[in-house]
């Protein structure tokens, strides 16, 4: 621990008062824009939440998995006879047995041209391709008995060549799946016209290669599933900690051959996800298959050691980047060559090609430029599988963009903030089409930059930095501008053939007592989805917020939809709910007009009653509307049928992705003797359009920032050359703790999207997208007096000491 506090000269962070909605929030009425505390948080605070592992069902069995100790090995012998006879064991299955009930999958998408992956089974047959891959399942009356039985599995292995290094994988020295021909899962080449010429004509070209360590999400609740097959009706109910219950419903149905409507997926409270729980895991599919095979409920909870071995990893990249610019600071273009390694399979159904694809799509994002070349190679290795984890690709794209921009600024002798000012896409240049083809509706880079520099007192910090350098105290300031993909249309997955819904629906129902129940197809993992839905619904219908109940995460009761991913819950689910609520309000007014015998346009709903629009006088409490509509429709006009339940759906259509923008800053102090970095403070100015609940949004940003800081400073999944995970526990894999995390100052600009009435864009991933870039730039800024740079994260003391030449 750095034994200097280093914070004496920094003013205390503004106390986190409940923030107000930013100016220009489009729907600043009712509860929209208010920092209402989450009603749904109360039970969690009392320990009265209900997570999947809390669930008990009659005859519940537990499954444990016998996992390959080798990174790559053929299964020569697998004998489960003795294990199957152990106390409490109900059954033991190998991959072939499970395959009779669960078909394999191949994770490719048509719009990722040329992507390839071999079929993957729920439990591996013949060969294990990463350390931790399940090759047998033991089902027992208790988890402990299952684990006892694992020791009695007899297995013999023939070790196969192991590929762990990404360059080695690319060289095809040893091809993991010979039938595929090489180790390339996906590659992409993109270049704009006239690229070579433009780069040749540039005044300055800077180049640097960046490395990003593989890391993972570490959800505090492990992956959790309880599958309950009812043989009497050939139906399957799955309680699963997943972000996308409808997607899982479709997948269980197709792979287990159970009619779709007979499959019901229910999400209970989810203890953190961040993308980890939106993917298909073979052991979870096996659990469902086993429930069918045994005709009883089966539970699987990934324990912490299993989580490190099998929860998706992400973000292992090596990227060579070049930036061309003129001496006046104008950026001419970007050039990148990205090599990224995944596991031995592309992950189903979203594929493991998306992260690299995002790096190609998003690098250079905030800056005006026409010239772009990108090369991507996604290679298989015998390490754990990888797939989308919070901010998917953005942390890399932002970090490499912002680092090379800082390098160029340094080379030209221009202040990094000023360099950005000269190149950020102007706020009035929209709509804007980006070299990689993406379209921006409306961003606010300059407003955000201005606000950030003011908020952090950039000038003051630079002066302080200068003063302290003379005292041999080395502080660094790093900026990172960013764009972020939110509210995606089918352009992300649907167009590639994936049965992943990009639309969502909301049903709103007036209860007889005047309460309102809403059922929405977007899901909750703690970010406050249900809370903002209460706010939106209450505002849309005209009731007080305590009258609203929200139900999510149940394919049996909510409309069909996509769930939570790519920061779409507020923007897409929220809009569907807003429209449904407004439609319900209109229907209530129809009924009230019939009861009161007045023109419905003279009425409105607010504060739990139908009121005279002009005077606000209450004419009919909603409880009366409910009573009459449900119990006394005989008192209504003959041809009038009350419709007090309304469903609406919403899909963003104009823009394939609704981009947001933001900018972050990191302020650090480097101890050049130890290589330790203290994170003093962090700032984020974010534009996510309409902010429904400022407090929830800011906390999402902070949580995202800290995950980004984790990847930048601490987190890395370390593998040996033999493909053994070396730090697969929370003692050895380091996640940020409260003692090492800085205060994070958040502010907003608001540019609502015009694609919806709500105007909300997404924000859940923004913090993670920009934090690593800001920190890398801050550390390199601190290193300026030493003339050194660091480019590989996490920025461990080892790497910093090496850069400084101390070791």
């Amino acid at each position, binding site marked *: 621990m750095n034994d200097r506090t280093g914070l004496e000269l920094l003013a205390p962070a503004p106390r986190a008062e409940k923030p107000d909605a930013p100016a220009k929030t489009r729907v600043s009425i009712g509860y929209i824009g208010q920092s209402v505390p989450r009603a749904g948080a109360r039970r969690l605070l009392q320990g009265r939440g209900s997570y999947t592992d809390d669930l008990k069902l009659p005859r519940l069995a537990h499954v444990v998995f016998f996992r390959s100790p080798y990174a790559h090995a053929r299964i020569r012998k697998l004998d489960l006879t003795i294990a199957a006879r152990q106390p409490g064991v109900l059954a033991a299955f190998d991959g072939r047995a499970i395959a009779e009930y669960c078909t394999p999958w191949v994770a490719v998408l048509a719009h990722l041209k040329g992507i390839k992956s071999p079929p993957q089974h729920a439990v591996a047959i013949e060969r294990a391709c990463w350390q931790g891959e399940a090759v047998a399942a033991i089902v027992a009356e208790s988890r402990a008995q299952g684990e006892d039985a694992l020791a009695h599995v007899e297995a013999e292995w023939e070790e196969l060549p192991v590929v762990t290094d990404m360059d080695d994988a690319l060289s095809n020295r040893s091809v993991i799946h010979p039938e595929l021909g090489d180790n390339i899962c996906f590659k992409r080449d993109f270049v704009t016209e006239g690229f070579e010429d433009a780069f040749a004509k540039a005044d300055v070209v800077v180049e640097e290669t960046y490395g990003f360590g593989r890391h993972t999400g570490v959800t505090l609740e492990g992956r959790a599933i309880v599958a309950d097959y009812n043989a009497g009706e050939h139906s399957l109910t799955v309680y699963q900690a997943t972000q996308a219950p409808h997607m899982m419903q479709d997948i269980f149905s197709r792979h287990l051959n159970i009619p779709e409507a007979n499959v019901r997926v229910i999400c209970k409270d989810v203890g953190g996800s961040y993308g980890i729980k939106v993917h298909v895991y073979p052991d979870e599919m096996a659990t469902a298959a086993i429930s069918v095979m045994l005709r009883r409920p089966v539970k699987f909870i990934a324990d*912490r050691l299993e989580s490190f071995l099998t929860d998706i990893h992400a973000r292992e990249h090596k990227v060579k980047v070049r930036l061309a610019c003129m001496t006046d600071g104008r950026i001419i273009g970007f050039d990148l060559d990205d090599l990224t390694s995944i596991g031995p399979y592309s992950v189903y159904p979203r594929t493991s090609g998306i992260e690299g694809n995002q790096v190609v799509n998003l690098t250079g994002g905030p800056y005006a430029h026409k010239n772009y070349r990108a090369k991507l190679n996604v290679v298989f290795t015998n390490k754990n599988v990888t797939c989308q984890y919070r901010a998917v690709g953005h942390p890399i794209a932002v970090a490499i963009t912002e680092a090379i921009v800082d390098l160029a600024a340094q080379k030209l002798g221009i202040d990094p903030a000023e360099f950005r000012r000269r190149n950020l896409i102007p706020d009035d240049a929209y709509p804007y089409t980006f070299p990689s083809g993406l379209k921006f509706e409306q961003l606010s880079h300059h407003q955000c930059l201005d606000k950030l520099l003011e908020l952090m007192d950039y000038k003051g910090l630079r002066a302080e930095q200068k003063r302290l350098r003379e005292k041999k105290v080395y502080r660094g300031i790093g900026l990172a501008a960013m764009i972020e993909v939110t509210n995606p249309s089918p352009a992300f997955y649907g167009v590639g053939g994936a049965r992943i819904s990009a639309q969502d629906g909301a049903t709103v129902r007036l209860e007889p007592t005047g309460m309102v129940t809403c059922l929405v197809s977007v899901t909750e993992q703690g970010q406050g989805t249900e809370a903002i839905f209460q706010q939106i619904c209450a505002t849309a219908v005209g009731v007080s917020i305590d009258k609203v109940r929200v139900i999510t995460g149940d394919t049996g009761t909510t409309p069909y939809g996509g769930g939570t991913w790519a920061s779409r819950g507020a923007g897409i689910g929220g809009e569907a709910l807003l429209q449904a609520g407004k439609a319900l309000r209109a229907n209530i007014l129809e009924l009230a007009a019939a009861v009161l015998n007045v023109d419905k346009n003279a009425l409105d709903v607010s504060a739990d009653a139908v009121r005279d629009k002009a005077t606000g006088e209450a004419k009919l409490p909603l409880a009366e509307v409910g009573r009459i509509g449900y119990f006394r429709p005989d008192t209504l006009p003959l041809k009038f049928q009350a419709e007090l339940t309304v469903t609406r759906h919403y899909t963003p259509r104009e823009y394939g992705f609704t981009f947001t923008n933001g900018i972050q800053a990191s302020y650090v102090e480097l101890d050049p003797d130890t290589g330790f970095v203290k994170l003093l403070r962090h700032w984020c100015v974010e534009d996510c359009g309409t902010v429904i609940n400022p407090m929830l949004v800011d906390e999402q940003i902070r949580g995202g920032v800290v995950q980004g800081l984790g990847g930048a400073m601490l987190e890395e999944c370390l593998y040996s050359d033999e493909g053994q995970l070396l*730090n697969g526990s929370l003692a050895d894999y*380091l996640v940020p703790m409260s003692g*090492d995390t800085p205060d994070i100052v958040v502010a907003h600009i608001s540019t609502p999207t015009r694609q919806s009435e709500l105007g909300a864009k997404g924000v859940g991933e923004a913090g993670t997208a920009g934090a690593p870039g800001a920190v890398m730039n801050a550390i390199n800024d601190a290193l300026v007096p030493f003339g050194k740079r660091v480019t590989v994260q996490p920025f*461990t003391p080892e790497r910093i000491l090496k850069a400084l030449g101390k070791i």
Partner: protein
Amino acid sequence: MKAPAFAYAKPRTLKEALALLGRHDENARLLAGGQSLIASLNMRLASPSLLIDLNALPGLDGIELRGRKLVIGALARHRALERSELVAQHAPLLAQAAPHIAHVAIRNAGTIGGSLAMADPAAEWPACCVALEATIVAASAKGKRRIPAAQFFKSLYTTALAPNEIITAVEVPLADKHSRSAFLELVRRRGDYAIVGIAAVARRSRAALSRLRLVYLGVGDAPVPATNAMAALEGKRATPEAIAAAQAVLEQDLAPPADLYHSAAAKLHLARVLLGRAVAALAL
């Protein structure tokens, strides 16, 4: 991660505990705080047939002055040492080290006896005991044995304890008005095991340091006294030159192996940095 099955005994007297241990020694494990043992059981890294719970043994958790020694019972919790006035006054090095041990919930349960018996080279108490020239008191069916700390820690997780011995106390010489101590450790996060740490004591008289004991943790199989560095500073003032001279000979004392995150070179470098900071702290 469920522990494998084992039998459990909770003896009421030391004699009973020793008898159980004698009967089962190879397959039995002693349970004190359990903060390391139960974690390793949950991870199935150990599968003893019997757990002997020591927590009912009377009189082993005290912290008291006895003559010229501070006697700390083996079952004294880390948190108790952290908050003890006696420790703060008479063995300030221990008070300086205690807050570095893991986190409060762990310190409420973990014991000094358990920590010493476990002999993790990155743990705080072993290095402190070596620095303080403490004595570890071990009981067996044959009686008591006093083992100087310098001879107690043999190798990775290996001590001088015989299989049928139980630590009952640690005896620490008292600090006096010339005593100085400093405990520093480098960690990436609060409460982590040290990357490198140093337990430093010395006597200070008219700004000169003598009888320095500079003992490192996290640099080898066991706590490592930096004897050449200590000799280089003996009788000297803590000037930049003296410190640099001590840092220069440190590689004669330490050959730290690499760990998961740090090369051997980095560990040695960090050890040098800590030497300078610790000695400067002693001189204050």
